[in-house]
């Protein structure tokens, strides 16, 4: 149940408002989805998927190994011939069907995703699912217009796409990968993350409902070894990966010297820059969205707050006051702001990095809130007195932890923002239009939000500079990764 973090007398006290679980029917076990059929793993291995907010076992899922990867790639290869030869208008209609079925089943999928991932229902319902449907709808329309996409006449698909996605936005990352791949005429073998396999398996059922030809989409739940086997498979033509920078580099080495086309969407350490003329209340909301959306488990999170020195005290007071009103607890409760951390492993990593922050001399503050007894939880936390040399200012924490640094001049803000191996996202808060443009121009980051943060859209290209990866997902740009151009 919901954990109250303010006294019952407070105007912020809410009665529990849980979303019903009955809308989703999770089977006790799931197979791999290969060539249109659910099937056991070749070696019979299974693993359990937990609800991170309760540690309850949700289902037991077949665990793909190398033999299964090979089987799935063969199925995708076989399906490629017909799928790529379909008129684009026909492929488009399959994708439109999928988009519509996702809209129809969106409440079910939102509850499922919240159960399996631990993120608040407010986010799955209002952000993840609408974006998933929109992404399929958007790329559906491209399927018969590729001649006009700016890549020359009749651009060809690559073949079989091997796709490995993370656990932070399971179904949305699936959509980002599968929608452009299918629109361009490729077939897909996708490995969801081991902690969040369920929505991808429900998606397999959506493919079945949509009448998608067998083998066009294959889903292989499993661990890193299955992902490695998929990216290394000699009959895969395209590798797309979203995840950690370390694994991304390993994949880049794996595909070196081959003809495989590679796109990587990796880590980040986004700077959220607040100038002294920024509207404080709006900036505070933006900072909260930037680092506490999805418990900070977002590659483009604004995990470094760069605040102009003259307004530091005022801003931090407001920010702390706001963080004290965030409601942490049952992810299915419609009033919950902060859900569970996705796994024990991730919680341990966040905990260790926060301890490093303290040990290195940064000052720690956590919102006063009671954490539920079971499940994986971490209170919204910020570090002040952070220098650029501190681990919490350099390493991606991937959790609800904000590092606060200060600056005096715009020049210094830009230099500090760019002082990172990453280059995925950044935020700028100021009322001065010309300053927004000047600063945005000089930030080495793939996505910049001015007076807003963490906005996404299927028409908007997303991806990083530097070690945040390469290639873009979304928009016309997102087609290139799946075309022989």
């Amino acid at each position, binding site marked *: 149940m919901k954990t109250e973090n303010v006294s019952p007398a407070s105007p912020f006290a809410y009665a529990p408002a849980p979303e019903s679980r009955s809308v989703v029917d999770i089977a006790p076990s799931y197979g791999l989805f290969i060539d249109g059929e659910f099937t056991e793993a070749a070696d019979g291995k299974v693993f359990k998927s937990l609800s991170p907010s309760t540690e309850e076992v949700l289902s037991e899922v077949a665990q793909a190994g190398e033999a299964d990867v090979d089987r799935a790639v063969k199925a995708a290869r076989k399906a490629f011939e017909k799928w790529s030869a379909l008129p684009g208008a026909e492929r488009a209609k399959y994708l439109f069907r999928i988009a519509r079925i996702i809209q129809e089943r969106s409440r079910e999928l939102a509850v499922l995703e919240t159960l399996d991932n631990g993120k608040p229902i407010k986010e799955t319902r209002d952000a993840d699912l609408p974006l998933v449907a*929109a992404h399929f709808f958007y790329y559906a329309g491209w399927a018969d217009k590729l001649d006009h996409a*700016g890549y*020359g006449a009749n651009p060809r698909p690559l073949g079989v796409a091997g796709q490995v996605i993370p656990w932070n936005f399971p179904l949305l990352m699936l959509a980002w990968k599968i929608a452009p791949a299918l629109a361009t005429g490729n077939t897909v073998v996708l490995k969801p993350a081991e902690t969040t396999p369920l929505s991808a398996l429900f998606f397999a059922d959506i493919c079945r409902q949509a009448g998608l030809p067998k083998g066009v989409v294959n889903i292989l739940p499993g661990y890193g070894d299955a992902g490695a086997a998929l990216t290394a498979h000699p009959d895969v033509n395209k590798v797309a990966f979203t995840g950690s*920078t370390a694994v*991304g*580099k*390993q994949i*880049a*080495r794996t595909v*070196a*010297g081959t*003809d495989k086309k590679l796109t*990587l969407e*990796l880590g980040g350490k986004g700077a959220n820059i607040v100038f002294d003329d920024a509207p404080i209340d709006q900036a505070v909301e933006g900072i909260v969205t930037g680092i506490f959306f999805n418990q900070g488990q977002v590659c483009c999170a604004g995990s470094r707050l760069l605040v102009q020195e003259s307004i530091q005290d005022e801003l931090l007071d407001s920010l702390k006051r706001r963080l004290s009103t965030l409601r942490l607890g049952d992810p299915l409760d419609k009033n919950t702001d902060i859900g569970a951390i996705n796994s024990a492993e991730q919680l341990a990593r966040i905990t260790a990095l926060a301890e490093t922050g303290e040990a290195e001399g940064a000052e720690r503050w956590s919102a006063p809130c009671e954490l539920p007894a079971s499940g994986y939880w971490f209170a919204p936390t910020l570090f002040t007195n952070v220098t650029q040399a501190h681990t919490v200012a350099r390493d991606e924490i991937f959790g609800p932890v904000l590092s606060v640094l200060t600056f005096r001049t715009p020049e210094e803000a830009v230099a500090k923002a760019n002082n990172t*191996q990453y280059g995925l996202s950044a935020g700028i808060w100021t009322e001065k239009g010309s300053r*927004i443009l000047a600063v*945005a121009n000089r*930030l080495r*980051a*793939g*996505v*910049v*939000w*001015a*007076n*807003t943060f963490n*906005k996404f*859209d299927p*028409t*908007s*290209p*997303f*991806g990083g*500079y*530097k*070690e945040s*990866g*390469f290639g*873009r997902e979304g*928009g016309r*740009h997102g087609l290139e990764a799946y075309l022989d*151009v």
Partner: protein
Amino acid sequence: MSDKSERLTVFKTYKLYVGGKFPRSESGRVYEVTTATSAAAAAGKGKWLANAPLASRKDARDAVVAARKAFGGWSTATAYLRGQILYRVAEMLEGRRDQFVREVAEAEGLSKSKAAAVVDAAIDRWVWYAGWTDKITQVVGGANPVAGPYFNLSTPEPTGVVTVIAPQESSFLGLVSVIAPVIAAGNTAVVIASEKSPLPALSLGEVLATSDLPGGVVNVLSGRTAELALPLAAHQDVNGLDLAGADADLAKDLEIAAADNLKRVLRPQAVDTDADFSTAPGTHRLTTFLETKTVWHPTGSLGASGSAY
């Protein structure tokens, strides 16, 4: 006029081009460059032409420092200015056409007329890319119709410092075909010249130095490709790598080294191995070393009583 035939010609000392200057290799090393008797002839079999600098790893690192230093100014120069400077390169080359025809003929074992055609094509290629500098942004960027009250704009920006391994056979047209798009897009370049035929590349440095191109935007190294390419592929302050002149084994090793800081890698393309680079280029080499930046701006409203119309 019998003494005219006895005049001794003045040889040129070929030097590296780094940071807008013409240093010798810090290692003090040189290697012999000879004429090619045919396009495929190996070095060492023809007539001696010159001693080229045998650049070292240190020279390569110095070149990266120069390229990084030049990146800020070059990447933020207006596209119009970059276009004018690239066009100026074509103008300067046109004036030194005879010199390059001779050097290309000797380097690649071509007849004078074939070498002239190669040089003409190279000059025209500078003109082609000069015209691209202020057009590519509109072609690959633009406003994105997001479903919300935001103005959302995608713009291409240069990747940074790019190491270019120039084609081994096409010592001049190939060279120009790989350098020009990298700098047209606003990147700066460290170029490893054709190992056996580096002289046209070293002479190109002299042309670039007199074309208003800021020092360090293009840096030219001659020497052993593998010796120079590996440290550059692994260099943490290099952002991109064009493998045009690397053979398959070297290309793989370099791509693996480049993964350490996730350099943007352009693998050897089919066009690079057809040796003559005479095919009209597309935009692929321009876009490979461009990043896409997308900026979201709230559009707001005119207030409660206002109307967007």
